[in-house]
């Protein structure tokens, strides 16, 4: 972050930082958590927030504690009338924000409008995605480049969104470690449940939830269930309360759906011993109070990325081949909803009450080993490093894609943040050995291309440093760099596992804002040098995993 300034009377003035978050209420909450962590690292910065009014108003009680001011962007239809477009009113909103003269703007939304908004607000330093004078998307900070290469292009990210925001804001995800208490000693057996989400793909049907509630009521006879939700979810809550399976337990289910506003949720949940829900704003809000939570990730939800940011958080998700899908993906039969078994969830809840909710600083949420062979993945986070370290707890062997995620976390954290992740080496599925051999070969080929990129870009740089650089020398070299970029893209299209690597290299230099030609050449060369390092680490990790597997299962002699 930028250095603080000293005013004329010698006092230190705080750096004014504007955070742009135009996404939904859950993202605003995660932004709030990230800014609280950033403030702890940079106490001399004052943070402001610009968000959509419909997503910030309900959180005003929380945002006012974190931000000096919240600029609420009205809905775009409010700038329309029967007369036409009230463009002046829209312009005056932007002008008002600009009167604050921010030293830094950080865009944490990966949408077209947010990148243009970041462009029209004046500031010397900009982070996240914005536009150049020709409205082309640009970015220059490494954490935005990471998000662009892993989060936006596939499902290869294992880091929590809150940490990614902290990385973009402060340049590093690390912070003071926080540890979980050994035991939560449940405060009665009040289980708060938010059984809904923003899209049908993301939440279980009423029947499934009622099946779970029925089992839970029998397994934990003194449990009380509290349903949470907003006014628009009232109709779903009525279906649950009227369900035939719930008839004998009606006095043990209390519905708060539609009856309380967001600001009342933390207070009403003070008596909660456990929260269960899908990926939704309520889960993020409750996790701020360190209440143990179980999140059911379904449909397009990326379990490790969007789980509540807490050492008391556990996420359960199915092993369905197409999970996680994308928001745009249409699906007639939600296979992942069926693959996430009711028994798996009820087993976890029963285990939680049987063990009084046990947590360890190094392992996070501890659960009974009897759950090891269930049909779902269970991801647990710890905060021992000062960021959310999420790992699968119940899988003895990881799939190829899961191993790649672990590898990419190790390599990118080393390259971007100089963090050495001390982690148990993953155990692979023996039948997937050919995938690792193929990946190793592919990495070697990519390394060859990247090395050529480094050579050509260093030749460009050397030519530019001469007193009279020759266009005749520079043009063929620049053409070669373009060819290498084209080959890397082509290469990656047939091998999606390489995407984070190649995309990180190419976007490191091609998505930069306007720089002079010398800086551009320098950045390009550094991108290839960094790419080489990434490639070497990935090759070493892949070779180690192949060697270990070969020692366990030597290849059969002919």
């Amino acid at each position, binding site marked *: 972050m930028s250095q603080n300034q000293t005013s004329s009377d010698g006092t230190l003035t705080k750096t004014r930082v504007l955070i742009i978050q135009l996404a939904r209420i859950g993202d605003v909450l995660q932004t709030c958590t990230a800014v609280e962590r950033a403030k702890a690292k940079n106490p001399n910065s004052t943070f402001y927030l610009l968000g959509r009014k419909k997503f910030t108003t309900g959180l005003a009680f929380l945002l006012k504690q974190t931000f000096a001011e919240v600029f609420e962007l009205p809905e*775009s239809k409010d700038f*329309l009338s029967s007369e036409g477009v009230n463009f002046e009113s829209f*312009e005056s909103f932007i002008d008002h924000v600009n009167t604050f003269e921010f030293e830094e703007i950080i865009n944490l939304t990966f949408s*077209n*409008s947010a990148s243009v*908004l970041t*462009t*029209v607000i004046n500031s010397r330093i900009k982070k996240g995605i914005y536009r150049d*004078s020709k*409205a082309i998307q640009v970015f220059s900070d490494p954490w935005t480049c990471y998000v662009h290469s892993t989060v936006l292009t596939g499902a290869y990210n294992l880091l929590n969104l809150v940490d990614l925001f902290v990385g973009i804001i402060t340049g590093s995800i690390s912070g003071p470690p926080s540890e979980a208490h050994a035991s939560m000693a449940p405060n009665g057996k009040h289980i708060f449940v938010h059984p809904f989400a923003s899209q049908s793909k993301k939440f279980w049907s009423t029947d499934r939830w009622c099946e779970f509630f029925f089992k839970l009521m029998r397994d934990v006879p003194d449990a009380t269930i509290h349903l949470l939700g907003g006014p628009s979810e009232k109709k779903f809550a009525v279906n649950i309360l009227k369900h035939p399976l719930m008839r004998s337990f009606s006095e043990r289910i209390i519905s708060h759906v539609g009856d309380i506003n967001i600001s009342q949720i933390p207070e009403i949940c003070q008596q909660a011993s456990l929260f269960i829900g899908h990926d939704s704003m309520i889960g993020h809000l409750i996790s701020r109070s360190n209440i143990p939570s179980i999140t059911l990730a379904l449909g397009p939800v990326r379990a490790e990325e969007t789980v509540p940011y807490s050492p008391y958080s556990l996420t359960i998700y199915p092993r369905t081949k197409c999970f996680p899908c994308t928001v745009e993906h249409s699906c007639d039969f939600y296979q992942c909803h069926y693959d996430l078994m009711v028994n798996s969830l009820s087993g976890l809840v029963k285990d939680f009450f049987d063990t009084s909710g046990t947590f360890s600083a190094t392992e996070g949420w501890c659960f009974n080993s009897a759950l090891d062979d269930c049909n779902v993945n269970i991801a647990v986070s710890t905060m021992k490093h000062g960021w959310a370290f999420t790992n699968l707890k119940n899988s003895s062997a990881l799939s190829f894609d899961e191993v790649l995620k672990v590898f990419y976390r190790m390599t990118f954290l080393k390259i971007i943040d100089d963090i050495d992740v001390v982690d148990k080496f993953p155990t692979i599925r023996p039948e997937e050995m050919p995938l690792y051999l193929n990946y190793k070969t592919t990495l070697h080929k990519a390394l060859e291309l990247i090395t050529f990129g480094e050579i050509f870009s260093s030749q460009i740089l050397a030519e530019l440093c001469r007193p009279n650089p020759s266009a005749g020398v520079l043009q063929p070299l620049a053409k070669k760099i373009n060819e290498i970029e084209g080959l890397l893209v082509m290469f990656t299209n047939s091998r999606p596992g390489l995407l984070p690597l190649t995309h990180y290299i190419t976007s490191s230099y091609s998505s930069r804002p306007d720089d002079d030609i010398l800086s551009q050449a320098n950045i390009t060369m550094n991108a290839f040098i960094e790419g080489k390092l990434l490639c070497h680490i990935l090759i070493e990790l892949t070779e180690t995993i192949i060697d270990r597997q070969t020692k366990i299962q030597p290849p059969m002699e002919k």
Partner: protein
Amino acid sequence: MKFDEFQKTITGILQKVKTQEDLTKEEMVALLLQQLLEEENVPKSNQ
């Protein structure tokens, strides 16, 4: 600004984006409003 006038302005801006010409601050603000309208799915009849 009338709807058709705004639409005409946006068409001009999008053409400049296509041909990679520099945009003025005012054009960038207009582009922003258009994108917000698009993202929030404001009915075309309103535009």
